[in-house]
């Protein structure tokens, strides 16, 4: 796939990957063997009929390919861009054994983009239109479901429940929907216009979206029950930034990745002063962590004009949780990597601004509970790392704001909601999914849970009506 030249792209926030041409897409699609027992489908958390949509691309029927895709996936233009296909569908592809799996992600993106540029994405699919006419829809329509959080899990559950015929309202605490798709993932990886288009489609399915609605403060779940909501899906994500708990973390110039990315992505701080929200940028930036969020923060810093940007990670390259493609893109953009390194203290100037980090070198020992080799500090390996801006990207936990208002809801010891794979929680009418259940994970895993929870909610409400 064609990409923007690294020297150019570090000066703009435009998309890095430029997508397939129709000819490229057909050519790639023709490599698909159309396996009967398609492993790729099992590799996909939202169960897309992958050989099915690829077969349509082969024929040049992009419209039909889009319909097949949309049958299962409500956010294909998003998934085609941010899914870790290499560990999912593409990993399970028969051709992967021969070294080069079908580029499922690129094809998905192509079809979704084609549908957007041809206005096809504006049309809810035929199946939904039929649904609108039948009586079951009319009965279902009287039942209200509240979805709390408008990220990938919430949007997916909402779309599926709307397609099944329920009246769905999404409550979002920020002023714009999309959750992590909007505040977390930068424009150059996922343009907001794409998020707007996919959200627009879900609205056309009849889903209502209430922004600026902080559930737990403006209303409790109990109050929503009184208002007639029959089931709840909590999809509030991983909305609590973790810090390292080291000295100097409250110095000026130390951001959580959440703050840094929210300023830039949601509030458009990269367009300051045209937009009012500011963000400071350093001469020498250190990003702590090596997941996708860390890589996004590093690449955003680069684009904001930081002189030198370094990923500081406590393990080695092979343990880095970020997608391979992101790491590659970061390297092309001149991001440095300080591996096997743990910060133990951040130093500041008298005026409260960051000056440097004291770090330790690590070696790797046997694997820990995460299956990755555990970093162990090397004695007397302390050294100082010069920097004037630090972004802490070491993960996010469950935000307690809403959960503390539902004492009967069972949480695990990390503070995440206890839910089964179908999203059922300890409270019969409350379902949950996405990062609030699993801890920080991927967009597509959250969508998979949204999908399964939608089914479980439908089952629950169907039983409710029958007895």
């Amino acid at each position: 796939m064609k990409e923007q030249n690294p020297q150019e792209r570090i000066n703009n926030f435009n998309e890095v990957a430029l997508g397939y041409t129709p000819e490229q897409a057909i050519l790639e699609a023709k490599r698909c063997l159309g396996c009967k027992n398609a492993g790729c489908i099992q590799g996909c958390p939202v169960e897309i009929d992958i050989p099915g949509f690829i077969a349509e691309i082969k024929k040049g029927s992009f419209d039909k390919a889009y319909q097949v895709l949309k049958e299962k996936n409500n956010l294909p233009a998003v998934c085609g861009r941010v899914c870790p296909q290499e560990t999912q569908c593409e990993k399970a592809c028969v051709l992967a054994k021969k070294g080069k799996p079908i580029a499922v992600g690129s094809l998905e993106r192509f079809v979704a983009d084609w549908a957007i540029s041809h206005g096809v994405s504006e049309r809810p699919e035929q199946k939904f239109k039929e649904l609108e006419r039948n009586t079951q829809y009319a009965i279902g329509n009287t039942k209200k479901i509240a979805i709390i959080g408008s990220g990938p899990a919430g949007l997916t559950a909402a779309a599926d429940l709307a397609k099944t015929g329920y009246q769905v309202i999404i409550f979002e605490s920020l002023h714009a929907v999309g959750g992590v798709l909007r505040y977390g993932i930068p424009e150059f990886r996922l343009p907001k216009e794409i998020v707007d288009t996919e959200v627009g489609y879900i609205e056309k399915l009849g889903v209502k979206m209430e922004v600026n609605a902080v559930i737990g403060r403006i209303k409790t779940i109990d109050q929503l029950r009184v208002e007639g909501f029959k089931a709840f899906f909590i999809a509030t994500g991983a909305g609590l930034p973790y810090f390292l708990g080291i000295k100097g973390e409250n110095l000026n110039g130390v951001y959580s990745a959440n703050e840094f990315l929210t300023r830039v992505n949601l509030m458009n701080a990269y367009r300051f002063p045209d937009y009012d929200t500011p963000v400071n940028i350093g001469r020498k930036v250190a990003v702590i962590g090596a997941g996708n969020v860390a890589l996004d923060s590093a690449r955003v810093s680069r684009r904001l004009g930081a002189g030198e940007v370094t990923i500081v990670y406590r393990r080695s390259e092979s343990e880095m949780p970020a997608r391979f493609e992101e790491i590659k893109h970061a390297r092309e953009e001149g991001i440095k990597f300080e591996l096997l390194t743990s910060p133990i203290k951040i130093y500041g100037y008298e005026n409260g601004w960051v000056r440097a980090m004291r770090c330790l070198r690590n070696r790797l020992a046997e694997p820990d509970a995460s299956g990755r080799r555990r970093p162990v500090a090397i004695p007397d390996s302390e050294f100082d790392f010069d920097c004037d801006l630090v972004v802490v990207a070491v993960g996010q936990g469950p935000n307690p704001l809403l959960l503390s208002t539902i004492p009967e809801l069972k949480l695990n010891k990390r503070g995440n909601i206890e839910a089964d794979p179908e999203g059922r929680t300890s409270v019969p009418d409350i379902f949950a999914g996405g990062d609030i259940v699993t801890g920080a994970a991927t967009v597509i895993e959250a969508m998979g849970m949204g999908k399964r929870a939608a089914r479980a909610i439908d089952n629950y409400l169907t039983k409710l009506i029958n007895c």
Partner: protein
Amino acid sequence: MYRILKKEDLNPSVCYLEISSPQIAKAAQPGQFIILRITEKGERIPLTIHGFDEPEDTISIIVQKAGKTTDQLCSLNAGDGLLDLAGPLGKPSLAVKEKRVLFIAGGVGAAEAYPIARAIKQERGEVAVILGAKSAEDLILEKQLRALTSKVYVSTDDGSYGRKGFVTDLLSEILLKDKSFDLIYAIGPLAMMAAVSNLSRHYKVKTLVSLNSIMLDGTGMCGSCRVTVGNETKFACVDGPEFDGHLVDFDELMKRQARFKKKECRSRKLAGKK
């Protein structure tokens, strides 16, 4: 769009706004705040809720011009609208449970002190208020506070009204005579809250301060508003806004509040102000 129903200039740099917001008006409690955005390109800023029951479907805020967004807010009029309004945010005030509370309100801090003081009065508690401002024309809500209690003491930095000096001068005089307060509640500029906390620590009177640090989402998601309280990092938006004044690291917080100063100045200048 959230409609502004009433606007009043309380003095040249402070305005009062009544905004239509039935849901927030219903849910809000003393001590809580909202986050608003005026326009698409605007920033999200937190502001204390001053009133939430007069009339029923509105909330009111009192705004001091301090930057581009607050300047803009004060230039709006009845009939104009705000793009976004989220709230109520933060924990409701703990002070309303106390019996005898001494308020120290500096500048627009009175906007938050008033609803809390009124709630204490409604619970049959007693309140006293030290009201401070730079100058006579900067004082707000004096009449309303006097309607709640006969114990209203005023000081101005320049001596143009009430006692000349700082609120802490009045505070030490009062604490010398009367040590029966259950709580001191300080709300105003950071330097004032720090000075009050230092003084009240000496007199061993429990002190709450209300912190309005730089925020983005206001729901605990970004950590921008973090503040060190008793050697622990807290988020002002969800753990606060009220904290034990004797435990807050004011020095760190004052530095943190200046993090975007250069950019804020630039923004304000570009908007045509000083």
